[in-house]
């Protein structure tokens, strides 16, 4: 139990950051934002699968 509480109380490291001038962002947050942009673009360009009902026509 004590070990578990010690594990809880350990500070979570923020991880590496990148900096451009006044902009500072963690690599983790930057990766998430870039992944969201990729998903957004893919959603615009990838074809949506046709429904079985449409295929029957």
């Amino acid at each position, binding site marked *: 139990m004590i070990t578990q509480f010690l594990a809880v*109380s350990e500070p979570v490291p923020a991880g590496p950051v990148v900096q451009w001038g006044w902009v500072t962002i963690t690599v983790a947050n930057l990766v998430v934002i870039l992944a*969201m942009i990729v998903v957004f673009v893919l959603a*615009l360009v990838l074809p949506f699968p046709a*429904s079985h009902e449409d295929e029957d026509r």
Partner: protein
Amino acid sequence: MSRVPVSERSSSMESPEHRGSNTWTAALTRWVEGLVPKGQWLPDRQPAYVASWIYVFGVACLASLVVIIVSGLVLTLGGVTWWHTSSVGHFVNSVHLWSVELFFATMVIHLWGKFFMASWRGNRGLTWATGALAFFGSLGTAFTGYLIQTNFDSQWISTQAKDGLNAAGIGAYFNVMNLGQMMLWHVSLLPLVVGAIVTVHLVLVRRRGVAPPIGATDPTASGSQEPES
């Protein structure tokens, strides 16, 4: 409420007299039925332009919200020590966290898609506004969630936020270092507010129909509420 024998209730509920009666239950029924055009609460057909991945993110966001609420309810059953010290508690805590991550990611992509197609067109301004309110309400709910982790991370966040809120003059009313207050805001007050806003947003989406891409014909614009296939 008007008294009707049980045997006659089924037919009398559908009768024109019932529809026109002045009871508050009949009025409420008419109001609920009139919120959304007939057959549009759960439509099985949508305009052709909805067959695009960009229209998926609204419902993906809603699905994430369901997982957030269910995992959050499970966390309330076990409580703080449970989600810190048991493996099942860790798992449910992680499900809650990652469903929130997915919720915000899909909500923001939904926001980008709706922004670039100017989805407030066609008398959908209130739909856009309630979506924005749901976003800001969700931000508040997420921030209070960070405050109730009950670890050093949440202590750090709460002390930093306390400085800012004190400077804004609201630290005495919204005390981010008061765990009891933040816990209740996160598990009770804010979920109710966000739930109410999301419900209104969904009703408006069903009422006005999904926004068409720029240049596409909006089947609801001509006065007809029936979607095309």
